[in-house]
Every structure is written in structure tokens, then in C-alpha cells.
């Protein structure tokens, strides 16, 4: 499994970020948890990559690895995260701090994780601006105000003087997004930023993000468990299972014609894909513990297509042009079997 052969991206623009064979392991007393084990993908400039998986699939740890926030006992033990030719995994904390919040930003699921509850919004935003650029207090304030306006916060001048608890959940997440945007980063890693919000508020945030990605040329990694959200938002999807990417391709390809049985199972279990009142198609069993992964394909025990060859770990390979999957027995139509 060489990294070069699997990083082929369906979109051939110069990528903003390239992750090659990333391995982030957690050294716990119970054993080594391989939370991320050989993940590769590229994020093209100005595009949105949806990183989809269930809890424990390693999608959040992948995001944290990119932005350098993996805490002990976790550690990046292998692979490269290439940004402008630099490997982020090997940067010192000092060098990483120049990038983080500046060229690469993160939006968390809970905006209270980003915001300091005892400081006013203006204090926090001005501090962020001045941490990376030498501007006057007044200029920084101006920039903070403009960015708040950009993410759709009404009367930003007054809102700058508020404390985080004076905002609603949706507005708080907008502030967090505004802080991420302060330095017009090239890449934003968004970890389930709308999961805790109501649908109408989620719709508003998604609309803003979509507009921003289109106008500022920022690339996005959108981490979520919800296929429906990335269906409308992302350009590409990478599906993760048990620490590995099992399928990667353009949104319409992956969602309309999944190759990996796990992707197909996920899509099939969405209620709107089923006839009303009939039993939902379900994936049997549950996600295996990362401490005791079975040999071979990690999805084997839940897979309806599993065969003998699945006892050997399948490599991720280009099964159809521009479409990668990690499966010995991908779901193919008769005409495609020959070409694959």
C-alpha cells in the first residue's frame, strides 16, 4: 500500500492539503488504539470534502491531527500532512502556532469550546486578529466587526460587546465561524459544527458556509456523521470506518452508486431512502472495538458480501476511474466488473 498510488484525487487542481497515510494512535493502558490507521486524501482548493463516519471511525481524530491538537496518550506515529510542501506533522509547536488560526482554522461541534465564557466577543476576536497580524486595536476591531457581519450576525457593532452566554446556540456557532474566518484561512476543518443545532438554524449556517466557501476560495473539511448534510454541501466524500477511509469519490458518485458495502449500508439505513412504515434496511451488528479489530477487512463481520478473501486486509484501490474503495468485493454492475 504505497501512499502515492492512493492519493489520486477525482479533481485535478493543485490541492490545498494532502494527507498521506496518516496514522494517529492512542497508547492507552488497555493497549494501542489505532484511531486513524493509514488515511490518505487530498483537499482541492476551494472545494468541500465531507469526511463521513460513525462514532469511533476516526473522523474527528483525523481533523485534530491536521490542526495539531492530538493530546497524549495520542500521537501521530506515521504519515504526512502536506500543506504548501511542509509536513504539518513534523512542525514544532511554535511553527504550528503560526499556522493554526491563521492559515488553517477549526470550527468545533460545541462553540463553547472555542469561546472563552468570561471574555467579551470583541476581546476574543481582536486578540485573534492581533496574534497573527500587526494591526492597530482599532483596525482589528473593524475587521472583527466586518467578519461578524459576513456570517450574518445582525448589528455586529453591538454584538461585539456581548459575552458568549448572551448569544443563542446558532449565533454562538456563527461567532465561532467568524473567528475561524478572521484571517481568511486557506483551509477550515469543521467538526460536526451543526450537529447540536436545530434544523432551521442548521440550514442558515450551511447556507452561510456555502456562500463563504464560494466567495473566499477557502477549502473545507466537513466532518459529520450525517450523510444528508454532506449530500447538499460537499464536492467529495471520504467515508471512514474503523480508522480507515473505505470509500472516496465525488458526492454524486458515492451517494448514487456506492462501491463499498458499508457506504451502501449507511445510505440504505437513512429513513427517507426507505418505504414508509416498512422495516429500514439496517447494518447488522455494531462497530468493532478498535482495541481488538479482527484480522482482514474490519467490516467483514457485518458485511453481506463478505467472502474468504476478506480475511486479508483489502488495500484501497482505484476500482473505477476516479473512485477509490477498500474492498475485495465492491458493488459493481455487470459491465463494470470487466473493467475493474
Amino acid at each position: 500500500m504505497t501512499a502515492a498510488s492512493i492519493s489520486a484525487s477525482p479533481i485535478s487542481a493543485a490541492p490545498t492539503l494532502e494527507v498521506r497515510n496518516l496514522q494517529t494512535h492512542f497508547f492507552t493502558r488497555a493497549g494501542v488504539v489505532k484511531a486513524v490507521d493509514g488515511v490518505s486524501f487530498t483537499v482541492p482548493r476551494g472545494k468541500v470534502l465531507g469526511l463521513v463516519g460513525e462514532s469511533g471511525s476516526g473522523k474527528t481524530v483525523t481533523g485534530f491531527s491536521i490542526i495539531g491538537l492530538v493530546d497524549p496518550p495520542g500521537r501521530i506515529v506515521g504519515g504526512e500532512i502536506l500543506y504548501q510542501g511542509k509536513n504539518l506533522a513534523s512542525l514544532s509547536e511554535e511553527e504550528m502556532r503560526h499556522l493554526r488560526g491563521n492559515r488553517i482554522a477549526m470550527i468545533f461541534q460545541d462553540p463553547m469550546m472555542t469561546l472563552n465564557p468570561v471574555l467579551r466577543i470583541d476581546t476574543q476576536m481582536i486578540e485573534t486578529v492581533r496574534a497573527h497580524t500587526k494591526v492597530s486595536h482599532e483596525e482589528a476591531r473593524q475587521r472583527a466587526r466586518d467578519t461578524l457581519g459576513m456570517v450574518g450576525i445582525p448589528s455586529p457593532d453591538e454584538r461585539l460587546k456581548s459575552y458568549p452566554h448572551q448569544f443563542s446556540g446558532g449565533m454562538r456557532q456563527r461567532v465561532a465561524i467568524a473567528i475561524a474566518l478572521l484571517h481568511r484561512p486557506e483551509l477550515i476543518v469543521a467538526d460536526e459544527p451543526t450537529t447540536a443545532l436545530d434544523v432551521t438554524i442548521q440550514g442558515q449556517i450551511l447556507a452561510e458556509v456555502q456562500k463563504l466557501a464560494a466567495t473566499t476560495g477557502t477549502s473545507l473539511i466537513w466532518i459529520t456523521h450525517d450523510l444528508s448534510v454532506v449530500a447538499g454541501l460537499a464536492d467529495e466524500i471520504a467515508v471512514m470506518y474503523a480508522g480507515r477511509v473505505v470509500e472516496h469519490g465525488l458526492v454524486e458518485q458515492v451517494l448514487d452508486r456506492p462501491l463499498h458495502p458499508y457506504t451502501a449500508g449507511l445510505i440504505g439505513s437513512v429513513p427517507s431512502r426507505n418505504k414508509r412504515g416498512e422495516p429500514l434496511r439496517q447494518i447488522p451488528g455494531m462497530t468493532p472495538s478498535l482495541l481488538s479489530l479482527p484480522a482482514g477487512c474490519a467490516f467483514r463481520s457485518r458485511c453481506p458480501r463478505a467472502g474468504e478473501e476478506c480475511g486479508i486486509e483489502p488495500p484501497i484501490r482505484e476500482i473505477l476511474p476516479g473512485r477509490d474503495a477498500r474492498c475485495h468485493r465492491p458493488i459493481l454492475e455487470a459491465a463494470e466488473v470487466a473493467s475493474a
Partner: protein
Amino acid sequence: MSATTLAPAAAPMIELRGISRRFEKKLDFAGRIAKRLGAPVREEIVHAVDGVDLSIAKGEVVGLVGESGCGKSTLGRMVAGILPPSDGTVLRQGRDITVLNTQDAREAKLRTQMIFQDPYASLNPRMRVADIVGEAPHVHGIVSGRDWNDYVDEQLRRAGLDPALKRRYPHQFSGGQRQRIGIARALAVKPDFLVCDEAVAALDVSIQAQILNLFMKLRRELDLTYLFISHDLGVVEHLSDRVVIMYLGRVVESAPAAEVFARANHPYTVSLLSAVPRIDSRKRAFSVVQGEIPSPLNPPPGCHFHPRCPHAMPRCKVERPALREIAPGHISACHLNDAS
């Protein structure tokens, strides 16, 4: 579905008449002094549920939908009898539950059980699964000590759990398995009516499908009636015979499930439906409902939705619209229906 169009001849499983629930926050010491000195402070009153009529026929599955803060959980708790209403009456099969004698009241309470959202917080971490499931039937004399073991085994098997695991504690189970324990516990006292409050919201997609299928199987086997509370319209659409939509403590629309999704009437329902991300959508512009849910401390006068409504008229600001039947079994509270 027939249960909604034809008025049920027998008394409905549960009937709410003009039910309300207020939560008051008393003034603290400083507040009381300030008030005495003439400061404009007053007790804060939240109208969590405001005059709701709802009737659920035997065997029916009613989906209760709304965003956070709309009072759907409070309503569910009043239906389940664990929260007394401030006003109005709850009729259980035609009898007011507040005037029942002790024996009958206990009986009525046992026959209505509740399934909670958080499978981590709703199970006692210090009790073994066998005791969690078996305690209530033992206390209420539903099963004798001699048959207890077999009875618990049967309950666990019915919820899809291996009885061999019954000596374990809740932390040894995954989220989906814990939700099965919660279901087994609820069904162990032989209820005929279940209130499920966001019962699948905390679960992964593939596990969510398993639990929804279990709910549907149990409904057939045990002839259960459900009040299924959820913010997830996809789940509700799949499961329910009838859908009730709440906004800021009031019911704004109620209709058979297929009708709501095909011909939503109330502007709030329409905007809610358009905000739901769909897996079939591709790179679409997310539609935006303006604004946020107003604070229930100080709801807008007239129709609660008018500040966000694209069709608001002067009348909507002053007059509360009444729920009117606009098609058989389809009621909606909107002034627009009077114009036509």
C-alpha cells in the same frame, strides 16, 4: 392512518384537553427588595406548553415534531404522567388521571412508559442489567420471585439482547445496546402506550435503523401506541401515522404523515421541511428560514411565528390563529386559511 380520519368510537388512548404548563422562576432576595423599592422586576414565567389539545387513538403512532424549546418534551412528560400540568386535563381511555384512586392511578401510570433520549444518563450505572429490567415488575407484583429469572430473560430477548449478558453493568454496553436495555425496562411492566422522547437522536445512523425497526416490530407484536417525539423529520415520516408540529408551546399543524409531507399548510411546517437536509440533494443552495425561535419568556403576540413568517399580515401580530380543519384529519393554525 384510518384512526385519524375516522373519529375512534372507543375512548382514545390518551386525550389532552387545553393542557398548559408554566415554569416560574421566583425572584431571589435582591430581586424582592428591588421590587419593593419599585424597580421594574417581575417573576419570569415560561409558557412551555400553552393550551394544547391532542388525542391519540389506540394503536396509533403520533410523531411530535418541533425545534428545541418548543415544548415537545414537556408535553411528552405530561402525557407520561411524570410532570403535572398547570392547566387542563389528561384523559386516559376516557378517565381523568388526576381523579383516579391510588390503585387505578398506579395502574394507569404503569401502562404508560417512557423511553429517554440519553441511553447513558437514563440507566443507573450501579445496577446490573437484570435488576434494571426486573426491579419494577417485581415491585409491582407482575412476576413472582420464582419466575423472575425467566421473565427478565424474555424481556431482554424481546429487545434484542442476549440474556447471558444480564449480569453486566450499563457501562459495558454500547449506545445502541443501552437503548435496548431502556426499551426492555419500559416493556417489562406490560405497558400499552410508550412515550419516546428523542429515543434515537443519540445513536449512529446504522444503529438508529436497528432501534427504529425494533420499535416497529414491538408495535406489531404487542399492539402498542406511541407518542414519538423527535426533531428529525425523516425518522418521524417513516414511523408515524400522524404528525403534530409544535412551535413555541402551541400546536401549529397536525395531519396524517403522508399529508404533512405532501401538502404542508402552515408556513412554519413548510420552512421546517425545506430546511431538512436530504440525502438526495446535490450541491444545492440551502434554503433559509429567517431568524431564530424567540425566547419563550417573552413570546411574540398573536401568531408566535409571525416575526419569521414570509406571509405575515398585520392581523398575525395581534390575533392568535385558531386550529381549524382544512382537510379531513388535517388541522392548521394560520390566518391565511381564512382568506381562501
